[in-house]
């Protein structure tokens, strides 16, 4: 059964349609990516799924219908979003940011929190070095690590990543994608929004192409990566 099943999702800002009848599914333990040009509605899709934007259509998480559920309730149910702008607590320490990520399990006690913290530090050793620093003082790559770490502290069943490579140096992008691959072992399902289509198609099992608010291609990511039209539009002509 799918972890996330979006059916016929529509979002409009004022009179302008941003998403028009989008359907999409993420299976347990799967990595699913949504690629597409700027302004296609990719971030809108994640924000609607998280409950930040009002949307038409149905969104099911496991066997819960999310209609009318607030953001906090969706987090409680096991969804985590790492937004494009990271939305960290800039004037609080790295460790406090991570501890607040554990808010979902606040009743679980200190030991469980420390265990989750250790897991995140193991995944991003750089955050351990920076744990006493304010989040606002971090570099772009570290901020992305912290945003992902904070989301993982909630131990979600579904992790949604909005452009994790945006504005980062190529070496750091590679690290981030390594981490995404490593997360597959933990069993968390991942919905990945990316402009970096090449890297996204490499890590994902399944892919969707979103153009002006509609899904235009969907399929196995290997198949999509081989599709001539996708290659031309999103991957560039790559000799060899």
């Amino acid at each position, binding site marked *: 059964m799918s972890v996330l099943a979006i059916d016929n999702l529509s979002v409009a800002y004022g009179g302008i349609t941003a998403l028009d009848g989008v359907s999409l599914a993420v299976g347990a333990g799967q990595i699913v990516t949504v690629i597409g040009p700027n302004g296609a509605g990719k971030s809108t899709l994640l924000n609607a799924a998280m409950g*930040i934007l009002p949307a038409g259509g149905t969104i099911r998480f496991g066997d819960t219908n999310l209609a*009318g559920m607030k953001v*906090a309730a969706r987090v409680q149910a096991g969804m985590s979003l790492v*937004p494009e702008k990271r*939305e960290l607590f800039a004037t609080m320490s790295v460790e*406090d940011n991570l*501890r607040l990520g554990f808010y*979902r399990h606040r009743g679980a006690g200190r030991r469980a929190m420390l265990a989750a913290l250790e897991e995140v530090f193991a995944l991003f050793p750089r955050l351990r070095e920076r744990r006493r620093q304010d989040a606002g003082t971090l570099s772009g790559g570290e901020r992305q690590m912290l945003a992902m770490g904070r989301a993982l502290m909630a131990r979600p069943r579904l992790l949604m990543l909005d452009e994790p490579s945006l504005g980062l140096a190529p070496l750091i992008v590679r690290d981030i994608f390594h981490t995404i691959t490593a997360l597959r072992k933990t069993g968390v399902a991942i919905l990945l929004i990316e402009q970096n289509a090449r890297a996204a198609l490499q890590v994902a099992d399944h892919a969707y192409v979103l153009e002006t608010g509609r899904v235009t291609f969907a399929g196995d990511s290997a198949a999509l990566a081989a599709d001539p039209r996708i290659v031309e539009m999103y991957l560039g002509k790559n000799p060899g």
Partner: protein
Amino acid sequence: MDSTILLILLQDGAVNGAIYALLALSLVLVFAVTRVIYVAQGEFVAYGALTYAALDGGQLPGSVWLLCGLGVAAFIAGLWQGRGQTDAGLLLRLGLETVLLPGAVALLAIWLAPLKPGMLVEVALTLAIVTPMSPLLYRIAFQPLADAPVLVLLIAAVALHLALTGLGLVFFGPEGFRAPAFSEAILTVGPLTIPGQALWIGGLTLALMVALFGFFGRTLTGKALRATAVNRLGARLVGIPTERAGLIAFALAGFIGALSGVLIVPLTTVYYDSGFMIGLRGFTAAIIGGLGSYPGAVLAAVLVGVAESFSSFWASAFKEVIVFTAIIPVLLWRSLRHGSTEEEE
């Protein structure tokens, strides 16, 4: 002016400044968490003072009925906002916080008031009656507006202030009240005679600040409030219910307002509309501190208190003018330093 007068004025200023500091702190807190400029905070000072004075005289304070009325109104508002939702737990919580809690406090007050149970119980009862009004008002007036621009929230806050002043007249009457000091003891240090009440004010202010510091620095709830203040969207994304954070911030502001009223009523006669001017000084301090800095607000509050006591000595007719004019150079300096800043989003 000799050094004795100087010291007395400084002492007076520091005592008043301590009260303003508490008010400024809660204004900064409420603004950071909810973006509401809580103009009506001053009314809580008056309500706290008048409730304590009534209890001290063995009377049942009118604010008990106001509390019950607000509870019922908040219950109805909560039902209306939550229409279509069938979460039994949420409904239970709503009933508990808006009907049961005020009802229990009212019964307790009706039982205890004629017994004249002594200062400590009276203070606790005053806080129990006045503090819950603030989160109830948040539910009624601000929760439905949570996503509105700052200006709309400010207009709502001004309207709330006017409504509460009127309600103050209805429930407390037009007479002013004064209560006896917590302690008649007088401490003599060199040329200074420090009345017990001043020590109470200073001590409680410091204790409350330390407690707030611990709350925001150590507890998860405190950190969640700070997180909401720093980044609302980020807070929602980690699962912090931001309405809950707003309720807690308003409850703290109500508590601090009521406590300030209890502390101040032995020093000066308080009328139903006295709160506004006291709250305005706290507001001045919060603005001078930049409406974002807690230490800045505390420091500015002490300065406002000292400026007030010196100007009432030299030019008492212009006391208010001098204190409130102090805000202008600060605003000028800030706008010159930062240039124009855009309204958020």
